[in-house]
Every structure is written in C-alpha cells, then in structure tokens.
C-alpha cells in the first residue's frame, strides 16, 4: 500500500508544478480539483485494511467538495468573466517553474529537518504539504486574476489538509466538517465577489484594484 501512497504524493507534487506552469484557467481549475481528489483518496489508502465509516464519510465529503463543487463554481465564475487564460502574470510562467523547483527543495529540506514525533503515513508527507502550501501562497502573490488567487488559496488549503492527514484521528469529525464548510463558504463568497468584480471592472484583474493605499 505504501507504493500507492508514494505514487499519490508524487502526483500531488507534479500537479503543483503544472499549476505553476500553465496559463489556462480551465487547466488550473482541473489541476486543483485533481489534487483535491487525490488528497481525498489518501486517507482511504491509509486505512485500506480497516476502513471505518467515519474515514469514508470524511473522504467522500472532501472529494465531492474539492473535486466537483469547487470546479463547478469556479468554471461558472470563469465563464461569467469571459476569460480563458491569465495573460500577464506578475511572475511569468518559466520563472514560476524555477521558483517552484526552489520551493520544492526548501520543502524537502524542512520536511527532513522536522521529523514528526508520531509516525505519519509517509515520510514525505510534511515535505509535500509544505510544498503545496508554498505553491499556493506563491500563486496568490504572483498572479493578478481573482480566480487564480482563489486557486492559490485552494492549493494552500490542500497543502494544509495534507499535513492534517498525517494524524487525522486526533481531529474530531465535527471540526473536520467545520473546516470543510468554512472553505466551501469561503470559495462561495469569493465566487460572488468575483461576479461583482466582473461587473464593476469588466475584468477580474485584482491589480487594477489599487486605489486604496496609505
């Protein structure tokens, strides 16, 4: 089973790099959705032998939200905005990939420096989660469009979820569901705001929203 887990983790890393290197919004939305589904599968892989109803429920809820609901919401927002790709990011795509490589190095080093006092599912869990978090943060600062910033936020959330996976038992179901609900509402509210940004500015570049300063 560890092979499957490691393969899933490798896929998460690759999806992050792909996210950094593509300008097509539809592709970005799909990548983040795939990431969400892989992460939803991970707890099932961890508990393959003794799958409890609770773990299955949690994983299903997470996969449906991240793999189906969010992509649908974001695709709608994208259609509404009538944009297909991010034309002019603050950091270009090739430099973004280089940054991604550097971040991966940092994440691996940190993961190696921070051994868990309790055994986790895989030794790469921490490194991958930190990498995903950093990629998400980078997306938020290096892209101009509201949609890509939301995607960055989701990637970051995915990374944090990965970290939480290592010891999911400690978190009660209520809290897990609360977190999922919060993220859902956050994306929902952001979706509504993207709609307003479209109407107000005729585009969804957040960097034109730069009147408030001082």
């Amino acid at each position, binding site marked *: 089973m560890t092979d499957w887990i490691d393969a899933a983790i490798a896929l998460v890393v690759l999806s992050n790099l792909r996210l950094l290197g593509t300008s097509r919004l539809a592709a970005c939305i799909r990548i983040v959705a795939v990431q969400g589904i892989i992460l939803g599968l991970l707890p099932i892989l961890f508990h393959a032998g003794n799958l409890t109803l609770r773990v299955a429920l949690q994983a299903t809820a997470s996969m449906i939200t991240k793999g189906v609901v969010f992509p649908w919401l974001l695709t709608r927002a994208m259609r509404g905005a009538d944009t297909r790709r991010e034309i002019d990011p603050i950091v270009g795509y090739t430099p973004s990939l280089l940054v991604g490589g550097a971040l991966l190095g940092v994440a691996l080093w940190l993961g190696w420096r921070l051994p868990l006092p309790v055994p986790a599912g895989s030794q790469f869990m921490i490194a991958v989660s930190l990498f995903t978090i950093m990629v998400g943060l980078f997306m938020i600062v290096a892209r101009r469009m509201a949609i890509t910033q939301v995607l960055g936020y989701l990637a970051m959330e995915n990374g944090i979820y990965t970290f939480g996976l290592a010891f999911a038992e400690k978190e009660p179901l209520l809290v897990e569901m609360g977190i999922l609900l919060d993220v859902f509402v956050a994306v929902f509210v952001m979706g509504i705001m993207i709609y307003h940004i479209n109407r107000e500015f005729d585009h969804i570049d*957040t960097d034109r929203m730069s009147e408030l300063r001082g």
Partner: protein
Amino acid sequence: MILALILVPLIAGAGAFFMRSNRLRHALLLAAAIVHAGLTAVAWTIRPLSQLGGWVALDAAEMLFLGTTSALFLAIAVFAIGYLNREGQGRLADIEEGFLFPNAPEATFVGCLLIFLSTMTLVIAAQHVGLMWVAVEGTTLASAPLIHYHRHHRSLEAAWKYLVICSVGIAIALLGNFFLVVSAGPAGERISSMRIPELMAHATELDPKWLKGAFLLLLVGYGTKMGLAPLHTWLPDAHSEAPSMVSALLSGALLNCAFLAILRMHGVCVAAGLADFSKGMFVLFGVVSMAVAAVFIVGQSDYKRMLAYSSVEHMGTAMLGVGVGGIAAFGALLHVVNHSLTKAMLFLLAGNILGAYRTKTASQVTGVLRVLPVSGALWLAGFFAITGSPPFGLFVSELTILKGALDARRFIIAAAYLALLLTVFVGMAMVFLRMAHGTGSGALREDAPARERFSAIVPPAVLGLAVLVLGLYVPGALRTAIDQAIAGMRLF
C-alpha cells in the same frame, strides 16, 4: 445558555435573509441584540456551565470579551437602524468620485450582521482549538459582505483584500493547529481532545519544538485578523470603506476576538514553560504595530483611515502589555475593553460626520462643533479618550501598562512606548482639533439634516460615558473578572 447565545443571533440572522419587510427586520435586529445582551448580563451573574462536553465554556476571560462584544453590538444595532432608515434605500452619490451607487440589500446586511455576532460569540466561547478556528474563519466570511455594503469599486477592493488576506492568514493558523496536534503526539491518550484547558493541564508533555512552531503560526494567522503590523494591510481599507457601524464592530469586537485566540495560545505556552519565548513575541509585535501605526497616523488625511491605524496602535499596546506581564497584563485587558468602547464611539461619530459632510478627507471638514454640536463635542471627547488623556479609561490602562514596564525594569521599552504614544497624540491632535473647530461653512452637503438624530448620537454618547466611568473607577466586578482572566490564562 451558551448555545442560546450563539444560536439566537444565528437564527435571527437566517430569518433576516428571508424577511420581506424592512421594518420587521429592524425590529428583529434590535430584538436579537437585546436578547444577546440580556443573556450576557445573566451569564455575568451566574456563570453558565460549559456545554457540548466542554467544547464551549464561559469563564472570566470569555465573559470579559463577550460582555464588551455584546454591549457594543447593542449600541451598534440602535445606530444601524437609524442609519438604514436614512440611507438604506435608493442610490447615493459617491463621495469621492460622484457616481451613483446602490447599497447592498438590507436582508444581506442585517443577516450578515447577526451571523457575524453569532460567529464572534462562538470564537469567544470555543474552548476547542479546532472549533475556535472554524469560528474565526466564520467571522471573516460573515463580515466580508458587510464591508461591501456600498456597492462600488472601492468597497469591493477593500472587501476582496480583506477576504483574501484574512483567509490566507487563517489558513496559516490552521497549519498552526495541526502543529499543535503534532506537539501533543508524545502525550498520547492523556490529551484526548484539543481543548485549551486540557492542553494547559498537560502542557509540559507537549513537544516544545512543535509547540513553538504552532505558536508562531497561530500568532501570524490570528494576528492577521487582529491587525498586528506588518499583517495589518487589510485593516485601513476595510475600516475606511465599510459603513461606520461595521467599522465600529470590526475594530471594537472582531480584533478582540482574534486577540483572545492569541492569548489562549500564550497561556498554553506559559504552562509549557515557554513564557519567555511567547512574551518576547508579544513585545516584538506590540512595538512594531505601535510604530507602524504611528508612522501612518502622522500626516494621515483620511479620518476614517486614521481611526483604523489607531486600532493597530491600540492592539499593539495590548500586545505589549501582555508581553511585559505583571501588572501590565491587567492593564492590557482593561485596555482592550476601553479601546473597544472608545473606538466604536469614534467610528459611529465618524459616520455622523461623513453623513453631514460627505467627505472622508479631514482637511475638508471644519466646524463640526458648530454644525453637529453633540457629535462634535463627543468627537472632541473621543479624541482625548483615544489618545489616553485623563480622565478617560484609556489613560488608566495605558498608565498601568507603563507601570508594568517600569516594574519589570524594561526601561527601553517603556521609553519607546511613551514616545510612540506621544507621537500618536500629536498626529491625531492635528486632525481632530482642526476638524472640530472653525466655521464649517461651505463644506456641507445641501441636504444635510437640520438636527442630529436621536439614534445617531445616543449610542456613541453612552459608549463615551462608559469610557469616562471606567476612567474614574474600575468596577469591582470588572476588576475581579480581569484578575480571574489573568489567572485563568496565566498572563502574569
């Protein structure tokens, strides 16, 4: 009891979304605020038992913050009803660029306002770190639509900034929560749930390295929400673009909730023997926040932004007080209460001034004392209160913090603290005094109301009176509550 405190505004908020009549909605807002305040008052006298297996509880610290929040909300609800009756409907001319814009539907506004109160109550009552996180994120989501009440591009920009920055900050806090779970790993089954009292009881068994990491992440995460520099960037925009009662609520209640979350983590660190580490962080963030705020207050031309930066300054002061410890911790908690009351009063008054003058630029406002006699007088009083002049409450709390710093023999910090307070005083004096005096001719909008409305001046006046009373003497009940809170969270 505790559940009622959380559920009453939640249900009322949900109801407000579906209500047809505005009049009924206003009544609902007021009724929910009164019920909440009433329940809080009852909870002050008979401390309710914890509920949901200890997941929510109201102890001294919780009561202190809940009391402030609930009282503020009541004042703001009264103000809001007057405001909505006056400006809720129709299109208004933008004050800076002149285009017309509508407001958000009242259903959204009142509904979000009530849900916001519910989530804040949950933050305060929550004892489980996970539940607390869920509630803090809930406050962000409930308040973002409030900031975008005026439907124009500047408020949209402010709300988007608020939503993204705070969501990212709170996501970092979630990572901090997970770090906390990892640090509890070695304790095994002895820590069965991540409740604060349980964590404090077993604090010495936590892995110190991971606990430190958790504290830092939570400090940064919730600190974003609390408006600590350099994470405060959303705050001036949100406070200046939101309607005044929302600014009052954000500054007076929301920042406190985030502060309480940080204080709880501090308590865990102290119990784990990491007091020096966490106190150092408190002092660092406190001084930096005060300094950054002072820089932006001096020469600030927008009076609402100036009030926002002043919130950064006061949050910094409270952080500094806790970081110094001893009697300063008492001062810090008192300061939080005083600041909430004063800042809410000032934001409400700023709303009155904005309504009459239709500009946020301080230099275009003169003669407030003549044009709006009551608001003007309160505005002046508020200036002296917020800058920590006697006889107001902030004077007492700031002096207590200074005394704490001197007692701890931290003279450099005390000197920096005094210098920053003085800078802020001068910076704010230049704006406030000029606004209050003068003839006030020419700057008024044509349809300015002939006299000040009851609902627009009573709430700030009551808040101002409360700050004055707190400056003259600290009631025994409040003193006991603060002392118990300090003992409970081990802030000494």
